[in-house]
Every structure is written in C-alpha cells, then in structure tokens.
C-alpha cells in the first residue's frame, strides 16, 4: 500500500459516494471495489450502449466512467498503489487496462492478474493457443503449450509458472510419466523436467524458486531452482522460504503421517494427521503451521508445539504479528467462524469472517465479519462501530491509534477513521 503514512488519518468520516445515482444511471453494476486508502469506489458497469466500462467516484465528485468501453471487462481490482486495473476485451483482443489506459500488447485471452507490493502487474496470456506470462506489458519471449500456477516475485522483476516443457498429448501416459513439466522463470525453463510441479514460490529476495514436484506416482520432492531434495516423500505440500536465511520448509508425508521438513530433513518430528500452511515470523526465527494432531481436530502449532485448543472444522488465514510475538488465525467450529490468538479463541462467533489484521505494534487485532446478514468490525474480540451492508477489510493507522473503516450503508459509501 503506497503512501500509507500520508493517507488522511484525521477526518473521522467522509461520505465518498451515494450509489443511488449509479443505480439510476447504469442498468448493470458488478461488485464494488474500494481503494486501499478508502478515497475511491469503483465497479464494472454497462453504459447506455450496453458496453462494459468502469465507473469510479471519489468524495465531492460525480461518478465518472472510463472514456473507453469494451465488449467485456472483468477482474477489476485496485493495485497495491491504488491504480484501478481490469482485464478488457475489444473485438476479441484482450488487454490490461489501468486507470483507463490499456497496455499496448493484446492477446486472445488473459487471466490470473497478480501484483507485487509495488503495483507491478502480471497476467497469464494465451495467443494462438500458445501460453506465456506478461509482466507490465512485456511478454515472455518463449511460449508454451500449457501454463499454470503463475507467480510474481516480491521485487516484481520476475514471473514464473509451471509450463509443459515437453509437449505431451492426451493419452500418452507413459511419456507423461517420464516428466513433461518444468518451471519457466521469465520464460526460461529449468534444465529438468518433472512428472508434475505445483506451488511455485519465490524467496523474499526474488532470487530463488521452490516448488513441490513428483517424479513418479510415489516419489514426491521439494525442488529449489531445479534441484530436488535428496529424500523423497509419499506426498508434500507447498514449500516456503525462510525470510532471514537461505532455507526452505515444507510439509511432508511419511508412513501416513505429516511432518514439517526443513532443507530435506524432518524438522518437526511430531507426526500429525495433517500439517499445512507453515509460515515464518518476520525475523524468521519462529515457524507456525496449521495442524491436525488428532483426526478431525485442528489447531495451530508454534515451533512444533500445538495449541491445546482444538477446532472441529477448519483453520485458515494464519499470521504472525509484525513483532513476531503473536500468532492469530481464523477457525470454524460447529458451523460458526471465530478468531483465535495465541491459543485462545475470542468469545464472539460469526457467520463468516475475513483475514485478520494485526496493528503495526502487534497489540491489536481486527477482523471484518458477517453476522445476521450484516457486516461489522471486531477489534480484540469486541464489536466496534455500526453495521454495514458491505465492508472492506479494516486497516490500522501507522501509529496504531486508529482504524480505517470502508463501508457501505444503504446506498452511501463512507470512509471512516475510528480512534481506538
């Protein structure tokens, strides 16, 4: 989020838009998108010619549409630097449009738009049935017969994807077993091919890529920059790089149970019925993961120590606080959603809840949730503010004193700054 510290953290409430004017003007309005700073609201709409375009409004201004309209537009998103990007098609040619400016290069189809934190934009692209990746309007030089799982590096300079490096026809099952897939980084493939590749992941410095692979029906490995770990496992999940040192961890399955492996060796020696979504503290010294120590019972493990509390259905969106001292996640238990922090569940339960957000000093945790048909914000386990018809995720101010609430009440979209 660019210019985050320069956002308006003083004005307690701004009425940014009255959407009743939109409803009068447009026969068709898709889902609303709100800028990170909360100052703008936008949506894909159809104009009077029934063509797709984008409507955007900010405080004190009338709603405005992009000058250009299209046969189709989709996947509208605010980039991390708060530009508005969409995938648009004119006469069958697809391009990325940002703030109503389309890229020069067009394709037969584009999808899977991804950003790095600076707002670099990458998409997967298909032209004349060949596949590549386009990063900030620059396509790879090489194209492939099949491409999936595209990722963009943290610095935005690289893109990578799983590609079919050896064309294989349907029904060529024995050729498939020899290995026909590789990773392409900026269009250049690794020297090695694998039977399957999944979960490409860049290191924090953008210089390395780790993936899950299998070389036979029963040999699963983690591979880094084309080299597999020495040992195979009966299955593996997604690898992750340490943010501080050159090291990779991944959940691995052996003897029917799951363990966390580090650089090819079992690192967490406690067997779990399930283990996934491992993640590091910001300084890389701690690792936590979602685990099932018993069949059908889920919790979080911090450095291989499971919390005592168990949940029956699901755990998701785990994260460390910025100072690395707190761990939080969402849980689902007996049909209701909740928030757990450092092994304790908040008392309040929800119909649905979104990604938790720590304040910068780690002392507060906020979530957007839905209950009885309305959206709310909960802060440290207590409901704050009013109910909303729609709501974006909360954002803490840089000094941790306030929360930015971006919400729709009736037809009124408001930007509020609430003091904690």
């Amino acid at each position, binding site marked *: 989020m660019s210019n985050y510290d320069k956002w308006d953290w003083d004005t307690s409430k701004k009425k940014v838009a009255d959407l009743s004017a939109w409803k009068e003007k447009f*026969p*068709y309005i*898709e*889902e609303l998108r709100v800028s990170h700073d909360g100052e703008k609201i936008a949506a894909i709409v*159809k104009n009077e010619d029934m063509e797709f375009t984008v409507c955007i409004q900010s405080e004190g201004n009338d709603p405005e549409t992009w000058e250009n309209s299209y046969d*189709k537009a*989709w*996947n509208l998103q605010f980039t991390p630097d708060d530009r508005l990007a969409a995938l648009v098609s004119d006469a069958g040619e697809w391009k990325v449009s940002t703030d109503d400016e389309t890229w020069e290069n067009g394709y*037969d*189809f584009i*999808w*899977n738009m991804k950003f790095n934190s600076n707002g670099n934009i990458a998409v*997967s692209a*298909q032209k004349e049935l060949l*596949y590549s990746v386009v990063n900030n309007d620059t396509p790879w030089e090489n194209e492939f017969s*099949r*491409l*999936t799982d595209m990722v963009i590096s943290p610095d935005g300079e690289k893109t990578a994807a799983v590609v*079919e490096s050896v064309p294989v026809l*349907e*029904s060529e*099952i*024995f050729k*498939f*077993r020899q290995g026909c*897939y590789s990773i392409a980084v900026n269009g250049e493939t690794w020297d090695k091919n694998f*039977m*399957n590749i*999944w979960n490409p992941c860049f290191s924090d410095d953008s210089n390395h890529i780790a993936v899950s692979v*299998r070389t036979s*029906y*029963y040999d*699963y490995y983690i591979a880094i920059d084309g080299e597999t770990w020495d040992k195979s496992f*009966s*299955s593996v999940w997604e690898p992750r790089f340490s943010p501080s040192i050159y090291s990779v961890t991944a959940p691995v*399955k052996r*003897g*029917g149970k799951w363990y966390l492996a580090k650089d090819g060796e079992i690192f967490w020696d406690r067997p779990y*019925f*399930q283990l*996934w979504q491992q993640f590091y503290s910001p300084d890389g010294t701690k690792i936590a993961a979602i685990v*099932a120590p018993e*069949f*059908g019972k*889920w919790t979080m493990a911090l450095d291989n120590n499971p919390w005592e509390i168990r949940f*029956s*259905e*699901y755990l*998701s969106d785990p994260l460390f606080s910025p100072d690395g001292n707190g761990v939080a996640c969402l849980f*689902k238990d007996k*049909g209701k959603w909740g928030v757990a922090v450092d092994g304790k569940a908040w008392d309040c339960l929800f*119909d*649905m809840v*979104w990604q938790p957000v720590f304040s910068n000093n780690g002392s507060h945790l906020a979530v957007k949730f*839905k209950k009885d048909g309305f959206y709310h914000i909960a802060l440290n386990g207590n409901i704050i503010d009013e109910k909303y018809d729609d709501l974006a995720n909360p954002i803490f101010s840089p000094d941790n004193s306030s929360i930015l609430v971006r919400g729709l009440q009736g037809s009124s979209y408001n930007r509020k700054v609430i003091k904690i």
Partner: protein
Amino acid sequence: MSEYKSVKEIEKDPKKNESKKIEDQGILKGLEQLTPEKIEIVINQVINDETGARLKVYVDTCVHCGMCSKGCHFFLSLNDPKFSPAGKVKQTLWEILRKKGKVSTEFIKDAATVAYTQCNLCKRCAMYCPFGLDVAYVMSVMRRICHKLGVVPLYIQDTAHSHSATMNQMWVKDDEWIDTLMWQEEEAQEAIENLRIPLDKEGADIFYSVIGPEPKFRAQLIFQAAVIMNAAHENWTMPSMPGWDNSDMCMFTGDYEMMERLKRRHFESALNLRAKRIVMGECGHAFRSVYDVGNRALAWKMPPIEVVHAIEYYNELFEQKKIKIKKKFDRPVTLHDPCNISRGRGLHEMARNIVKATCAEFIEMTPNREHNYCCSAGGGVINCGPPFKNARVESGKAKAKQLFAAKAKGAEVVIAPCHNCHGGLEDIIHHYGVDMELKFFGDIIYEILELPEL
C-alpha cells in the same frame, strides 16, 4: 445397432458372457515394467502400511456364502460366479494375501481388469452380505496396489494425469474454463437480460462447482444452472481459477495423494472466497469424493464447508418456493437412483420430491432407491474407455431390463442426476434398443422454469 426389443428378448438371449481378450495399453505396457520382486514389495507395502483391521476383518469374516451375488448387477447380468463380489475378491485380494504378495504379472493383469472394470464400487453387495462386508473397499485396495505398480487402464490413467496437471479431469486449460463461463453467461442472457455468472465473488451464499466434462462437453448445463440460480435470485459465484472441478478420478485409480491435492484445492477455492456453502452439479462420484472419501483423507471428519448436491439444492428451491414453474413436464418419467447419492447419502426421497414438483407422471423403476442397480459406468469403469465398453454394456443387462420394465409401464424419459450414470445409461439404451430419452433434473427444471420478468 440394438440387439434387443424387450425384457423377454434379453432373458432369452443364449449368449453367455464370453471372456474376451482385453488389450489395454495402460495395463499391458505397465506390466512390462514390473518384476516379481517389485510386485511383492509394493503389495506388502500397501497391505502392511495402508490397510489394517478393516481389510483383515473383511477377509477373515467372509464365510464365502455367496449371498452377495444377488447384490451385484454384474452377476445378475452375466450369471457367472466369477462376477459375484466374493468371486472378485477371490480373483484379487484373497490370492494376494494367501501368497503373501508373491504373484505373477499375469495375475496382476487379471486382477487389474477385475478391480478397475468389473466392479463399479457401488456398494450394493454390502447390503446383501449378512455381515455387511464392503467389497468395494477390497476392490479399492486392489486398485491402490495397481496404481502403485503403474498398471492402470490407459483412459482412466490419462484422466488422473489431467487432474494432476490441470486440477480438472478433462485437460481444460485455465483460459478455456473462464472463456466457457463467459460464453455461457452470454448465451444465458438471451433468457434473462443482464444475467451473470459472477466470477470470484467474495462472500457469496453459494459456490457452484461442476465436473470437468461440463465445460468440455455439456456446457449447456452451466448455462441452465446459471438461469436457475438467477431465477432464484441467488447470491452465487464460480471460481475463475483451478479448484472449480469437483470430480475425482484419482480416487478411483488409487492415486490417493492426488485425490488429497484435488480436494484441498476444491475446498480452499470455496473457503478462500468466503462462500457459505458449495452446491455441486448433478454428479455422483464427485459427491462421494467431496463428501466422504477425499475430505476424510485430508483428516476432516466432514467437509470443512457445507456441501450440497444438486438434488438437495433443487429440493430446497421447491420447498422454499424460490422458483416457479410454468407447467409440469408432461411426458411420463422414471428415475434412476445414482449409487453415490442414494446408497451413499440417502438423497433418493428428495429426488422423488423434485420429480413430484416438476413432472406430471412418474413411473418407479424396480428395484429402486438404495436398492437400485448401478448404471455399470460408476466407480471409474466408464472412464476406462473403449477397450472395456462392450463388457461394460453387457454388465448393464440387469439395468436394461429395469428400463424396459419402466418403459412397458409408459415411461418415456429417464431422469439420471449423475454424469457417469448418463454415460452408462446412454450406452445401455443404445445397445439394447431401449429407446428412452435421458435427462438431468437441470434439463427438466430449465425447460419448465418460469423466468423472472425482464
């Protein structure tokens, strides 16, 4: 060309099922890579590490009484003891256990053929066994061994490969999927102006998932579902990225590691969008994978998000009066109960509720509900492809008789709320000259639906 014109003609047929040489390259070429040592190691690894009390109890408890025979449509159709459930176990796991894994490549060839193509894993026989022994589980263990040996029929193995490379069973590329949804959305706008198939909408009440063949061969079903969802004013979504396919041929080849990967992607796809529940299209095996097998392989007792089969969903639409019909479907219908959602989930009464709500005349097939015969396509058998088609259709003789009987009472249309059942029944109807029309519930509802005013 059809061979029969009635039940009597089928019964008079002097032909016995003759064991024909089946030449499947997946099996034959897979065998070339085996040695007796490898066979023994793999078998003992699977038996020792992956099975336990369940297999032992099944094998030790069976008293070889043969009561299971009348539970099996293969046996009923072909009248040959080797097609009885106990006979199939005798040709596979009993021999393997007796010889402690020291079996020949020829044995593996025959065992693979039995396990993949002569058992639909329909679990009907378990209801006829005095001890409730589940032969489908035993056949699944045999399939697991064959998967690890790399001896799997070519067509279904290719489907499993597609799952592994694309997360769908039909090699549908990411762009083809999205393009199909946009195309179907446009088509459906002919029926309802500004109708949407909302992609990746967060917080929807319904995450609608389908199986790979829908975008590939039966895209009109997505169109119909979109019209029904819009007519019911649902807050729904479909994902633009892999995770949209709820099907699972890996469950049937024995590639459980891939099954886990598929199910995780499917569940996370819905949960990451904060959907309230998954509504699945009319597919039986996918429901088995999502609701029973795949979720448990991942350590969930039940799915982590509510999973609703199309039958439950349509029943709810009528119960809650969320859609209206112009008039009832006026041709006499009969209903085929798919194994995975009737025996597997008990949705057969809900299916009849939908028939009552939509059709003027209903003629029951006999036997029915949880006793209904399998279409002979399920359990991945139809996915083993053309080399086994004739044998599969032969094993559907019992089903053909059922259909003829329903037809004799006046039924013109067979409703089959399952994709594989459609494939299997289509072949049976054609082969035996039954001359009935097949429909999904979605076809019927779409045809009689009162569309919202423009």
